[in-house]
């Protein structure tokens, strides 16, 4: 039973977190929205007047906008498909009886703990370098011309790097979900003559659907924001400029804060649409 005193104490304990997060959310957000309606160039005198929705219009009509949207969607979409499909396969495999299961799991999960700048640089130099990379050695071994990975096949390269980083996350979560699957149900289906494929499609996959949804939503939020992987590899060149990177360039590189802020508001709206779905699922889970 909570008394009035304990409820007051509880409110007091909660207050710092709420105030901090409220400030963290409202202050920068308000500033970004304000900037987005201004002509604001810090290198050329800063504030130069209010311009209404001009920045919003010029951000979407600039020649860089649609390509960046396509790039973003291709990266996010490809990485999602790759990580979820391979993640399900790997999770099922890792759930089987085998020797050294714990060690294999450690090997599979490891990439998730590698900091993004390290994984991007290791892939860029030691694997994808056209002269000294391991892939170029491999091509030459088979008598083929080395591929200029990050310039000629820039998108597949970025997708490979990012998928490598996120596959462990998908696998780990799907594996956790699979392990909560009732094995008696599986056995009953097996005894009733269900083959491995029908067992997969009628028992395993439906059981995993919620975990898959969560993986997709959480990864989407992180993938929309990938930065370091592009920053240290292509710097947005060769068609790898994502929406995030475009905004970054507008704000910090060309210091067109008004324009970049309008882009930022678009990014915030986009992220919130995804977030809305995620919150629904998490919220439902809270009631159980």
């Amino acid at each position, binding site marked *: 039973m909570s008394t009035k005193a304990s409820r007051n104490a509880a409110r007091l304990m*909660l207050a710092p977190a709420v105030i901090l997060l409220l400030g963290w959310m409202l202050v920068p957000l308000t*500033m970004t929205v304000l900037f987005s309606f201004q002509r604001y160039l810090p290198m050329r005198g800063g504030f130069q007047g209010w311009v209404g929705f001009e920045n919003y219009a010029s951000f979407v009509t600039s020649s860089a906008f649609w390509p960046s949207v396509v790039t973003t969607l291709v990266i996010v979409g490809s990485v999602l498909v790759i990580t979820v499909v391979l993640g399900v396969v790997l999770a099922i495999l890792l759930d089987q009886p085998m020797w050294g299961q714990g060690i294999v799991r450690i090997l599979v999960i490891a990439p998730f*703990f590698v900091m993004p700048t390290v994984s991007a640089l290791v*892939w860029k130099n030691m694997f994808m370098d056209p002269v000294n990379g391991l892939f170029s050695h491999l091509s030459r071994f088979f008598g083929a011309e080395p591929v200029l990975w990050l310039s000629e096949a820039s998108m597949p390269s970025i997708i490979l790097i990012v998928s490598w980083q996120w596959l462990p996350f998908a696998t780990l979560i799907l594996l*956790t979900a699979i392990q909560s699957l009732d094995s008696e149900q599986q056995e009953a289906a097996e005894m009733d003559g269900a083959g491995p494929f029908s067992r997969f499609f009628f028992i395993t996959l439906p059981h995993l659907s919620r975990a898959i949804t*969560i993986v997709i939503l959480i990864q989407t939020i992180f993938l929309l924001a990938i930065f370091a992987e592009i920053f240290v590899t292509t710097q947005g060149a060769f068609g790898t400029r994502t929406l995030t990177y475009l905004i970054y360039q507008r704000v*910090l590189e060309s210091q067109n*804060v008004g324009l970049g802020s309008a882009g930022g*508001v678009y990014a915030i709206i986009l992220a919130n649409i995804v977030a809305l779905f995620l919150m629904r699922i*998490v919220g439902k889970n809270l009631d159980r």
Partner: protein
Amino acid sequence: MARTVTTTRKSVNTALAWAIGLLIFFPILWTVLTSFKTEAQAVSDPPVWLFFDWTLDNYRTVLDRSDYARFLWNSIFIAGGSTVLGLLIAVPAAWSMAFVPSHRTKDILLWMLSTKMLPAVGVIYPIYLIFIKMGLLDTRTGLVVILMLINLPIIIWMLYTYFKEIPGEILEAARMDGAGLRNEITYVLLPMALPGIASTALLNLILAWNEAFWTLNLTAANAAPLTAFIASYSSPEGLFYAKLSAASTMAIAPILILGWFSQKQLVRGLTFGAVK
């Protein structure tokens, strides 16, 4: 009836899983191996695998760079500091929502989570300006605060799901036995909550150590952590694979080891308790 597994099937599973596991792990393994080679061996074609002259020179070279210690210290300070500060704020908050829930608790939790969805690039300039005004640009303190804020929703959620699992009856029983609030906390609650708090701290350390947007954009020479140190290798001069590997190995080793111990907690923390 227990499912019978033939040895053949188990062998096939084992072979397949190990092959895939090693393939996924290979880039890390290759980096670690390369870190012990000379620069010439690091780029030799055909590649050398295990039979080369193992050397620690690369580690010496990287460590001798006068500033390496500072990058490392910055990483430790920023990751550690944001974890401690985050826990100081999150533990009471999660505690109060778990044990004295109100009709608004669910909304507050979801709202906190929503702050995590804010794309960093959308607010980078305001933060940049605020940092300049407050003299926080390129300081460890500034990064401690930012990383604490971006991870706060996750650790509140994670702690909340842990605290929720502590049965309320135990607290009542302790109270009936005449334990004061102080004894209740020290002898009953804390021992039960400690594993959850430790796991949360671990996850926060990992996330903060690897964060690579704010750490790259808000630091320069002074407060840059290892993420930025590694990024400085992106414009190479001459042969540098072995040195890059040594630097990378040192940057990821501590967190790789911590991470392996926290697999289960990771799932809980990163799915906000939705998958356990």
